[in-house]
Structures are given as C-alpha cells and as structure tokens.
C-alpha cells in the first residue's frame, strides 16, 4: 500500500456500491487499480470452483446409520395416540353393540366411575395407614420407583444434549 491509499476492504465495499471517493482514487492510482484487478481475477477463479463429489456409497452409508436408529420420537407418540384412540373407539363400539345402546354405555361408565372413586378412597386410606406404620421403607420404595421412572424417561427421550450442542435453528 502506498501513502494515501485506502484500506483495501473499505475500497472493496465501495466497489460493490459502485461509486465513492475511494473508487475515484483507485481509478487514478496504479497500485490500487492493480489490487482491484487481482481481486476481479480471483473472484472469477473462485466462482469456477465446485464442490467435490462425496464418496459413491455416501447415501448408503447415511441410510445404514438411519436404519440402525430408533424411529423419531414424534412417530412413537403419534403411534401411541393412534392405538389409544382406536382401542377407545373399539371399546365404545363393542359396548354399544353388545349391550343395547348408548344408555347401557352410560350406565357402565357411571358404574365404573363409582367403582373408581371407591378404589381411590380405599387406596388413600391404605396409604395413610401404611405411612403411619412404615414411613421410612415406604419413602425409600417411592424414591426407588421415582429413579426407575426417570431412567426409563431418559431412555425414551434419548440424548437431547447432542442436538442443543449443534445449535440447530429452524
């Protein structure tokens, strides 16, 4: 760079804009003109470069790894919901067709509700009695059950850390 010549990056920005005092300087300056010409040639050469081809078996390698994976999580949830909905529908259909109409279904549902309520009250009483008698073993058992549930949940969800590390947007 000679004395009075602008910073090349600032000059390049002016080239993109198409006009400016630095560009005027560059037109009159042999040194700057030569650099700009080198940049033009370099741009041409760079635009001619192309991406290399991946290995011929690249897609097969990816798909082999994909096949070894569990299905995406949302598929499991969708499948579960579909099974639950189908089972519910079949249950309602069976009850309705076997027992003589919607009224029977309603009576059965009411009966099931009452039974469930009795079961809930009984369970509550049993737990409170058990807690009064054997609080420590019960607390340990609950803690172990909680740990097992958390472990199972972690296995089900998978390793989410890997994804966040990749900072995937979209």
């Amino acid at each position, binding site marked *: 760079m000679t004395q009075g010549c602008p910073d*090349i*990056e600032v000059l*390049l*920005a002016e080239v*993109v804009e198409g006009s400016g005092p630095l560009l005027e300087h560059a037109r009159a300056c042999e040194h700057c003109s030569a*650099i700009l010409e*080198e*940049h033009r040639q*370099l*741009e041409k*050469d*760079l*635009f*001619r*470069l*192309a*991406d*290399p*081809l*991946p*290995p011929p078996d*690249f*897609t097969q*390698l*990816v*798909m082999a*790894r*994909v*096949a070894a*994976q569990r*299905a*995406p*999580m*949302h*598929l499991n949830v969708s499948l579960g919901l579909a099974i639950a909905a189908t089972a519910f529908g079949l249950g309602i259909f069976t009850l309705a067709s076997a027992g003589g109409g919607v009224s029977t279904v309603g009576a059965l549902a009411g009966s099931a509700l009452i039974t469930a309520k009795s079961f809930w009250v009984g369970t509550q009483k049993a737990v409170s009695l058990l807690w009064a008698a054997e609080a420590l073993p019960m607390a340990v058992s609950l803690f172990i059950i909680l740990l097992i549930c958390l472990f199972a949940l972690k296995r089900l969800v*998978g390793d989410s850390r*890997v*994804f966040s*590390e*990749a*900072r*995937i*947007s*979209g």
Partner: protein
Amino acid sequence: MLADEAKAQPWKADVIAARRGNQSAFASLVRSIQRPIFGLCLRLLRSESEASEVAQEAFLRAYQHLNRYDENKPFDLWVMAIARNLCLDLLRRRARMKSEDVDEMRDTLPSSEKSQEEGAIDREERLSLESAFSTLPTEDREVLALYYVQKRTTKEIAEVIGVAPGTIMARLFRAREKLRKQMTASKEVS
C-alpha cells in the same frame, strides 16, 4: 398452486414423508443435498474421511430431529448449519489435540473435482488456488466456500453461520484479501 409450492420447496414432500417413517424419502433428501454438505465439510476439515464421517453424522442428526425442522425454511441450509457446527466442534477438538494435517486437503480436493472443472480452469492454477484456500482460517474458508463455490446469497450464509446478514460482505472482503495476499506470496516464492 400446489405445483408452484413444490417447485419453491422441493424438499417439503420428502420431509413430510420422512417424518412418517418413509426412509426412501429421506434417502432422496440426502441424495439431493449431499454434495454441498460434503463439500463444506471437506473445505472446513481438509480431510476426506473426516468430512464424510461428519456429513453422515449431520444427516443422521437431521433425521433424528426432523420433527424440530420448520419445513418452510430451506432444508439444505438447516442440514448445512448442523454440519458446520459439527465441523467446528471437531476442529476445536483437533486444536486441543494439535494433530491437524493441513496438507491432506491439497491432495483431496482436485482429484474429486476433475470432471466439473477440468477445462474450465487450468489445473495448476486451480491447485495453487486450492492450496492457498486451504491455508486460510476456518471462518474465511467457510464464507468463501459458501459464497463462491456454492453460490449462496449473503442472507443464506448468514442463516447457516448464525450472524447478521450485514456482516457477511465484510467477512467476504477480508477473506478474499487474505486469499489474494496468500496467492501473491506463493507466486513470489515459486
């Protein structure tokens, strides 16, 4: 209307099918964008085996997290961002291990590009350009590769890199000036 949408978002139907578990739809997505993904990985990592490994991993992660992808955005840019971040992670690990082999790329790239470029650009010129390219820092290689080699817009590059679009041109000028200086220095030596 539907045809226009399919033209504008060619990946959308395959993404939806892949989400439903259709693996051949995902294979079609891989085939359609594997070259730019592998190309960027190779320019960043400068090792064919590592680039292939990381590009595969990027596709695998894309498959695992397809439900988080917004299909209204370009699929290739999404996978590109994943691949780029995986490359940067590997480069960081490499830097810690100090086991980088900067010469491997010089033998790798030209052999892979013969069919596309032979005749369009002189082999020796291309070799010296690739050689100078490979000596640049990672952040310069990625903007040059995305802008010149893959012909991405500054907006697309900004999306992949995760910076403001306004900063891309400045980064490009800086990278190109470094490359010019490197080329000039190599010519003087030879």
